[in-house]
């Protein structure tokens, strides 16, 4: 701790803090133009100068000068004010002063400081800067005439985003920010540069001429895309969202966003939204009143339940429903219909973080203090970009070491000390190989293993076969590289293993999580901040949906359905018996529909026909349903097959909570009234229950959360009355300190064998990797035109060597077929794709990658043919 005096105030601040930070702590504001707490100090604008008694005779920049013991600082004096005024005058000479039509007007730091310091006259004269404005870049407009060369765009893109798209070129007075050869932007389009720009040099094109900053009302809520759960602010004007901003106070994201969060909200206001209920009449979906629609739903469900029993009814919900809605949905199925047949797409992955993982989740902010990362089966920079930023900061700024294991040379591989390009689908063998090497080389944390774990001997026994040579054969990773990676991992003091789950990363979740947990535990990476396993669910509420029991074998909590006392507690609370038998999973529900055992299906926000593997099979199955009700924002392929379509409100049109991947419960605030006649999912569930003659209770989210809190111990402390913008972190500190309730963590054993990847077949020589791209999340983002302006369509990513062998060139149309289906798609030749495997993002309706996949198989094998002109 350091004591100093600032403007006659005694200030105590932590070691390493700058004068600026110390002053902020004391509530003293010093003007800045090039400082941001997320970035390394730069010291370019010189507006933040202060006087330090010990450094007599000169002013010193407070943003980059560390506070030292006994310093006596003055933050304003005649000399300082004069210097600041001169700085402003100098910056304003060539500045166009086109404030009336600048989108930053009102929140421009240059404008604000000019006003504050009363610089009403400029004694310097020169012509105004006249560089051409870049109108070509999507989403971000660049007008360097307004630039003050603070370098923040360059630094945020490099230090945080890790894209390094911008640089400062030229020297002296000709210095400017530029891309390579000054071409339009070709980057991640996260908009972080535009957002951080203190002036109007970089602006948000979606916001252009939409509103003056002071006219908007900001509503704080949570991004609806991935499970990072970035806190955002939606700016509203005249009842429309005009932009999204990262919430600086947001604990998960500290103000950062990715392209989806910043530019993806448009789907909310899309003209394609369903605004009225639809009921199928004479084979066509026809607009209907809510009464009619609810009546039809009640009749359809009741009929099936009466004829075939409650087990013939099933529900699939979206992992984007709020906690309250997911809770009501499963309650509707369990307590009103009487079935445990409820699942969500997160269910494909939920075993990873519910049953597989014995460790509590990691807090994102702690990732920045890690010194080792193992990123495996996780293109985290694309699936959870803002979590990726944390890894960038730790690795690029703080010197953490990074091991990346991925068949594709993903972005993080560029910064990695060790990159392991393993064969697709062999992550488990790799993890076990690492554990094996660590144990045989004696690199484990013996003390930790002895004190905090059980079952080390059994683990060792089960790992015997995972020798480097065995692993080499299975994964294609050379034994020495494996050993090097193991040593690197084990030599850290705080290591995080990062894994992504969801439709983009099918299968193996529970086993993968368990092996990862083994690796973390033997190296003592548990019970301290930043150490352990981070399992990242795909969507905004993947984690919450599991917590709320929207899965077949868990009740809200999540608590095990199989346990009698648990069931009894819920039965008592809900006033309804709960079947002891776990329900059907997604795959089983679809199989059941195909076989006729499932006759009625309620899809709430879920779109299996676009998102689930094996589209053809799903379609056939759904065709056989006696009754399909779909509750949706859009007339998705699934909705098009429905008997009744119920129009639902979007995330921006409702209150509620999401639980993100670090276990943080965060509050959604309604920004817009529900569009048209849409209602919130919560209200619809309650109304459906009522139509079925039952009472689900209030649909008021606060009341629902109170009910959840009373039944789910982990959520006990969650209350709308106390939730702030920082959210509520579920597992408390004690929980994180001691994995396993009894102090010594239970060491999960390893019942996993190597799943040998299918041998390449002559007919289908390529492995198809189906996954997510940076620009999209699920299928929803394809409804946002801003996002589609940079990534409009799925493309097949193929390695240059493979492409050459098949005589495929960039942008050629190719036919991809598997045992399950076939599609035509544009090829994109890209070096990061490993040979022998191709990649297709799954988000799109057409070409729909999931047509090629099969739920029964982890690996999809395909063949690729060039489409010749004649066959077109």
């Amino acid at each position, binding site marked *: 701790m350091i004591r100093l005096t600032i403007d006659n105030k005694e200030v105590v601040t932590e070691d390493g803090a700058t004068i600026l930070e110390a002053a902020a702590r004391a509530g003293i504001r010093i003007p800045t*133009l090039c400082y941001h707490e997320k970035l390394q*100090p*730069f*010291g*370019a*604008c*010189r*507006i933040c*100068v202060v006087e330090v008694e010990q450094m007599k005779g*000169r*002013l010193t*920049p407070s943003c*980059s*000068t*560390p506070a030292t013991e006994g310093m006596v600082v003055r933050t304003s004096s005649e*000399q300082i004010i*004069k*210097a600041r005024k*001169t*700085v402003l005058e*100098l*910056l304003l*000479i060539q500045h166009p002063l086109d404030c009336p039509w600048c989108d930053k007007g009102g929140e421009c730091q240059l404008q604000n400081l000019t006003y504050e310091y009363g610089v009403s006259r400029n*004694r*310097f004269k*020169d012509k105004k800067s006249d560089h051409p404005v870049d109108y070509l870049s999507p989403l971000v407009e660049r007008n360097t005439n307004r630039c*003050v*060369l603070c*370098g923040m765009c360059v630094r945020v893109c490099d230090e945080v985003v890790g894209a390094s798209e911008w640089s*400062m070129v*030229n*020297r*002296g*007075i*000709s*210095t400017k920010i530029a891309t390579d050869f000054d071409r339009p932007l070709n980057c991640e389009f996260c908009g972080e540069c535009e957002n951080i720009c203190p002036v109007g040099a970089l602006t948000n094109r979606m916001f252009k001429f939409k509103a003056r900053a002071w006219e908007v009302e900001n509503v704080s809520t949570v991004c609806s895309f991935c499970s990072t759960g970035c806190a955002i602010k939606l700016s509203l004007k005249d009842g429309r969202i005009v932009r999204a901003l990262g919430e600086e106070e947001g604990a998960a994201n500290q103000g950062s966003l990715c392209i989806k969060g910043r530019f993806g909200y448009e789907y909310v206001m899309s003209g394609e939204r369903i605004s009225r209920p639809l009921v199928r009449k004479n084979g066509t979906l026809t607009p209907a009143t809510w009464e009619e629609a609810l009546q039809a739903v009640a009749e359809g469900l009741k009929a099936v339940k009466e004829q075939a029993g409650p087990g013939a009814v099933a529900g699939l919900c979206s992992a984007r429903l709020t906690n309250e809605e997911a809770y009501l949905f499963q309650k509707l199925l369990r307590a009103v219909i009487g079935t445990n047949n409820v699942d969500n797409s997160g269910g494909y992955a939920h075993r990873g973080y519910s049953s597989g993982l014995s460790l509590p989740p990691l807090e994102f902010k702690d990732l920045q203090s890690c010194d080792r990362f193992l990123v495996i089966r996780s293109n985290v920079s694309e699936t959870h970009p803002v979590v990726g930023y944390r890894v960038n900061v730790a690795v690029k700024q703080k010197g953490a070491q990074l091991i990346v294991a991925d068949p594709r040379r993903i972005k993080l591989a560029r910064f990695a000390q060790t990159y392991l390009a393993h064969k697709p689908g062999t992550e488990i063998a790799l993890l076990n190989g690492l554990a094996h090497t660590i144990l045989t080389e004696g690199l484990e944390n013996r003390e930790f293993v002895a004190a905090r774990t059980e079952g080390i001997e059994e683990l060792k026994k089960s790992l015997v076969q995972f020798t480097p040579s065995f692993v080499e054969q299975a994964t294609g990773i050379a034994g020495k590289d494996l050993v090097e990676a193991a040593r690197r991992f084990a030599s850290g003091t705080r290591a995080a293993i990062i894994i992504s789950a969801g439709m983009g990363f099918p299968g193996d979740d529970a086993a993968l999580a368990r092996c990862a947990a083994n690796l973390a535990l033997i190296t003592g990476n548990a019970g301290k901040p930043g150490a352990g396993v981070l399992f990242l669910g795909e969507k905004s509420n993947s984690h919450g949906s599991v917590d709320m029991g929207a899965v077949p074998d868990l009740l809200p909590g999540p608590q095990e359905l199989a346990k009698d006392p648990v069931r009894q507690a819920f039965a008592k609370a809900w006033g309804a018996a709960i079947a002891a038998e776990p329900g059907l999973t997604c795959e089983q529900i679809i199989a059941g529909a195909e076989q006729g055992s499932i006759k009625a299906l309620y899809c709430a926000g879920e779109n299996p026909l676009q998102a689930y593997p094996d589209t053809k099979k799903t379609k056939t199955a759904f065709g056989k349903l006696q009754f399909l009700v779909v509750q949706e924002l859009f007339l998705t392929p699934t909705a098009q097959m429905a008997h009744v379509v119920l129009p639902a409100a979007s995330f921006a049109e409702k209150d509620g909570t999401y639980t993100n991947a670090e276990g943080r419960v965060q509050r959604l605030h309604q920004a817009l009234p529900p569009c048209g006649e849409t209602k919130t999912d919560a209200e619809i569930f309650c109304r459906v229950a009522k139509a079925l003659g039952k009472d689900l209770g209030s649909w008021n989210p606060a009341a629902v959360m109170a009910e959840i809190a009373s039944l789910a111990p982990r959520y006990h402390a969650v209350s709308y009355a106390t939730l702030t913008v920082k959210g509520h972190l579920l597992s408390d500190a004690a929980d994180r300190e001691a994995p396993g309730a009894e102090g010594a963590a239970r060491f999960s054993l390893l019942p996993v064998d190597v799943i040998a990847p299918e041998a390449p077949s002559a007919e289908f020589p390529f492995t198809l990797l189906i996954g997510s791209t940076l620009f999209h999340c699920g299928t929803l983002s394809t409804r946002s035109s801003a996002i589609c302006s940079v990534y409009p369509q799925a493309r097949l990513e193929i390695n240059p060597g493979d492409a050459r062998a098949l005589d495929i060139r960039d942008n050629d149309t190719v036919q991809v077929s598997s045992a399950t289906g076939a599609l035509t798609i544009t090829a994109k030749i890209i070096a990061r794709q490993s040979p022998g495997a191709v990649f297709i993002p799954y988000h799109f309706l057409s070409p729909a990658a999931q047509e090629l996949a099969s739920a029964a198989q982890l690996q999809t094998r395909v063949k690729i043919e060039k489409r010749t002109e004649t066959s077109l």
Partner: protein
Amino acid sequence: MKINRASDLSKIKKQGLELLSPATTRITVGSATCGLAKGAGKVLEALKYEVKKQKIQAEVVAVGCNGLCYAEPIVEVIQPGKPRITYGPVAVERVGELLKAIKTGKVVQDLALARHDEEAYCLNIAPLKYAKGKVPAALSGIKEYRKQDFFKNQLKLVSKNAGTISPSRIEEYIALDGYKALAKVLTEMKPEDVIKEVTVSKLRGRGGAGFPTGLKWQACRSAAGDKKYIVCNGSEGDPEIGMHRSFLESDPQAIIEGMAIAGYAVGAEAGYIYVNDRYVVALERLEEAIKQAEQTGLLGSNILGSGFSFSLTVKRGGGAYVCGEETALLNALEGLSGEPRPRPPYPAQQGLFGKPTVVNNIETLANIPLIALHGGKWFAKIGTASSTGTKIVALSGAVAQPGWVEVPLGTSVKAIIETFGKGTGTGKKVKAFQTGGPSGGVLPASLLNIKLDYDQLTKAGSLLGSGGLLVMDEGTDMLDMAKFLTDFFAEETCGKCSTCREGVKRLQEIIDSIMQGYGTKEHLNLVKRMAAAMSDTAACALGKTAAVPFLSVLKHFPKEVEGKLLRKGA
């Protein structure tokens, strides 16, 4: 020969002495860039060719520069029993004549600049004793060097080897007591003792800021860090100076030895030398010198069996002026863009790759072996009380004999201009002078008596800087001069700081308007106000001092500037 004991140095010394004063003839050609530019390369080749062809018992050696830049190409002849003769300028056409004289033991009178009856200041050769104490007629027409102002008034300590030894032969360096200091330090002194001697010597940095070197070393030694570095700042972006280049081309081993001693003192095992990429000859010689030091066991692991290890790496840089600023230099060494870093942390706390680092100028480092060998007290006696030792001064501008000289600190500017520069050479009187390179103040002739002394010069509004001395005669337009210097900064600002980037541009514009007759009093006030903002806020000394030349012209030559302002009613 690789040695691993200090005592083995004497063997190499012996070899070196044989090379320096051979039983046959030694002919040296001043082949630093200054000489090469005037044809020294051709002279060297011609000499070698002819010596071989005519089977003359002589060795022709390329050496560095001795400061007589105006008289280049310089050739020196050393023959047993005869005084060394310095010739210059020796055009290639006169090589034949020179060789004939050598063969016959004669002297080419009109080319001879000096004879060296005694070499105490330099070569360790016993003073000559002429028969009967009388100088032979053939030599009597040539002035003994001690009688010449150019030699007499210099105190060659740092530059004692320059122009005499071959920069490419470590033996010759060792012959003149090279590496004796390192051997002494490694065998007799603790690191703290070395720092103490440097502190006692009161040596101050020769790179510009004049920071006490002992303090800097102590700070680095006390800073926590698993690794530490010594960085030699060989950047030299100052225009028209070239004395660092000249030094590297003449005596690179001295810097290597200085760095190794610094490394031992502060606890660093690695050093970097940053040299302007365009200094092709210097780089070549420096790299060769490092190789030889390594082969001799004077760099590398376990030097002279002391357990101390030290390695050196040469880094080439783009040569922008601001890259000479120590933190910009560190960025450049790390492969980042050459912009200054915020300070604190100072390099001694967190420098290269975040480790404690000493950044020292070439000349600072070249002083180190002397201090280590002769002691801090000895050094502190040279110069003035607060500015000890000598300084190499590079004379340029309106002087009859441009070049560099080494003088004790405390020597007056006037003496330097008159004794070494031989006046303006234009018949006009000195009007003004500027010390310290481009950021120095332009001072009027009335201040010519000012002494070369860190504090005096600073007080007068200039600085000692790296030792440039630019002379202006009565014919110089001071506004032109201000413009010339301001343009230099406009070229060289890195553009990071708002006040430096914009300020220099505005200064240029104001000077332009005055030159074009649109200047007003208001402009002059503006300059003062802006200069204050620049010196208050700019990150590095470039920006802080960029307005100094113009301000000093305004201060000392106000009439000249005001006379050009727009007159009321005009």
